[in-house]
């Protein structure tokens, strides 16, 4: 056991853990951060989207040296059936601003950079160190952690659990329950490497401009899920995710879906000739507001994915992770400055501050969405995409049929598939969940 005492231990060096450790260290607390991967981000191989605003709060001048890929000038939404996609395409030169709002990043590189900032701020960062257990005293209060290193028990006033979606430590210590299969999605992802110029030509980009495609439809075979394509500098990240419970029920495999997604005639040309590296699978907490577990206790707080803080509708995770990590650290700092102990009662401050932030407010807004999408998955992910495709084709194809008739055919096919009440009901439910 290490006799040196720390103010705080941060478990995990993902977005949430790095934000927490950075904030604590900047505030002058004595922090040790433990990460099981070889370095921060080594397990987070995928490309992702970064939201600048939340990072700016932590590192205002991050644009100077952070490994950013492309800033997003464009967002495409696709509704897909097996041979087509119907798209909504938003692009604006406004996004070519001085301080762009969203970037694509490659997590492995980004996290490594983030971690170097944590180190510079004065935190002790130990990688290749897995926390095996929380150390608790006779009253069940968390007093530190045990690790897989020889002589590796460490004590501190408070433990920040930023261990990601699996949250084994929290579950093992009985601080939370393992999220059920219908509250987590399994996403599989690949990186397809292509020459820069090829990517720019295929996605209609220049310089460091980037684009994102998000796709729903028959690609998820009727399950609640979504496919995505991000253009990075020299690679395209591409993946698909669905609820774990849906996979269990349907017998589909994530990799099977990904293969089909890649073969789709709308996707295949984008990645043709690429060299595939880094296949990865990862869970995403998708239970939304209703799935948020207890966030604090005697000597501990939980942040980021480990706390199921993830906005499935907007595909936001890392910003909620960063923000919750930062807020937890601020709360700990306030308690510490008052020289108060890290009791559950005092740590409730974290929950209170989080409730006042966009994190909980956003999650509350969409609290009914996950369930709706889940129950209606056949309609939202199979029927509607097919209908929309049919309608579009009907609309676009010129074959001598009178336009009035075309419209009637389209409408008829909608009603036939879903009935009037079904259609209105879906629209109503969707609107209500969104509100």
């Amino acid at each position, binding site marked *: 056991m290490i006799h040196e005492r720390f103010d705080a231990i941060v478990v995990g060096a993902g977005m949430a853990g790095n934000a927490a450790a950075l904030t604590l260290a900047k505030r002058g607390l004595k922090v040790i951060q433990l990460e099981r991967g070889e370095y921060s981000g*080594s397990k987070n191989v995928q490309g992702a989207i970064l939201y600048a605003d939340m990072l700016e709060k932590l590192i205002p001048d991050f644009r100077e040296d952070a490994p950013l890929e492309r800033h997003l000038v464009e967002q495409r939404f696709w509704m897909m059936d097996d041979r087509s996609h119907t798209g909504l395409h938003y692009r604006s030169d406004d996004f070519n601003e001085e301080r762009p709002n969203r970037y694509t990043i*490659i997590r*492995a590189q980004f996290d490594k950079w983030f971690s170097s900032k944590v180190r510079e701020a004065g935190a002790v960062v*130990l990688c290749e160190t897995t926390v095996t257990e929380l150390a608790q005293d006779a009253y069940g209060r968390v007093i530190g952690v045990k690790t897989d290193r*020889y002589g590796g028990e460490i004590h501190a006033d408070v433990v920040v659990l930023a261990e990601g979606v699996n949250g084994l430590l929290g579950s093992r210590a009985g601080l939370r329950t393992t999220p059920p299969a219908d509250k987590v999605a399994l996403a599989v992802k690949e990186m397809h490497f292509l020459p820069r110029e090829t990517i720019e030509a295929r996605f209609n980009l220049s310089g460091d401009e980037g684009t994102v495609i998000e796709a729903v439809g028959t690609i998820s075979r009727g399950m609640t899920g979504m496919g995505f394509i991000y253009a990075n500098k020299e690679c395209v990240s591409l993946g698909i995710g669905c609820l774990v419970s849906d996979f269990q029920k349907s017998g589909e495999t994530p990799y099977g879906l990904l293969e089909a997604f890649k073969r789709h005639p709308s996707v295949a040309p984008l990645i043709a000739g690429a060299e595939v590296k880094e296949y990865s699978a990862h869970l995403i907490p998708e239970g939304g507001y209703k799935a948020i577990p207890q966030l604090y206790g005697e000597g501990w707080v939980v942040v980021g994915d480990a706390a199921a803080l993830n906005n499935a509708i907007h595909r936001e995770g890392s910003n909620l992770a960063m923000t919750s990590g930062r807020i937890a650290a601020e709360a700990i700092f306030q308690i510490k400055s008052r020289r108060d102990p890290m009791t559950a009662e005092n740590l409730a401050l974290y929950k209170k501050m989080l409730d006042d932030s966009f994190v909980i407010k956003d999650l509350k807004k969409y609290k009914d969405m996950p369930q709706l999408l889940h129950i209606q998955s056949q309609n939202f992910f199979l029927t509607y995409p097919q209908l929309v495709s049919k309608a579009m084709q009907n609309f676009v194809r010129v074959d001598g049929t009178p336009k009035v008739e075309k419209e009637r055919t389209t409408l008829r096919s909608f009603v036939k598939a879903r009935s009037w009440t079904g259609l209105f009901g879906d629209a109503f439910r969707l609107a209500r969940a969104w509100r």
Partner: protein
Amino acid sequence: MHIIVCIKQVPDSAQIRVHPVTNTIMRQGVPTIINPYDLFALEAALALRDKLGGEVTVLTMGPPSAEDSLRKALTFGADRAVLLTDRFFAGADTLATTYALATAIRKINDVYGAADIVFTGKQTIDGDTAQVGPGIAKRLGLLQLTYVSKVGSLDLTARTIDVERRSEGGVQVLRTRLPCLVTMLEASNEIRRGTMADALRAARAEVVKWSAQDAGVEDISKCGLRGSPTIVKRVFAPPARAERASMVEFGQEPPADALIKAIFARQPKLEADLAELARGY
């Protein structure tokens, strides 16, 4: 006892990609690691220190980011780390590399005590030459033991060391005098997992950083690109073979028979050769 271990940070070559059009290396996202062979050298050094006392200094020449590798070596339990970094070192071939490393080792000897043994890996996975070890030895006038699979007894009073060295067709048992340079063979040991105390110390340690001047380099023209007698003129992808394999289709026929037929159809002479070989067994 003072032991110096030379380690190199290398791109994890399993993850290197080649630009399909220009045939240049696409470096993006390729992680770096400590050259795997160097870990055998490091463990051999740490084991000797644990047995006989003393200190282990790790040394690398590389870009500033090579500090990561050094810190990792400290986590395993090395006592000190020296990073030799300077733009003058860029583009070095093995001869220029050994010049820089040998100069730094002399300086380490002066500042931290004369080394009894310098360890290197058998080879790197990027340069892959196995020349840097022998080159350092020659420049420092150290006795050289390459492809060592086992460090046997080490007598600090008599200043002798016995090792087992892999050679063609067998193992040589050699005895030589200290100071010497040892290049370690792979699979000769397994790198330890540092303790929590090692890890904490490593996280806080200062890595010593030397420029060419700090290290005492006298002739900068012997470093880097300028000091390299070899020149890379062309880099290209291995040429593709014109035709793909002819694929054996088997319907009702057992696949084994179909395959054998296809093999012998393509090279009829092979059957007689194989029959002869098979008889020989």
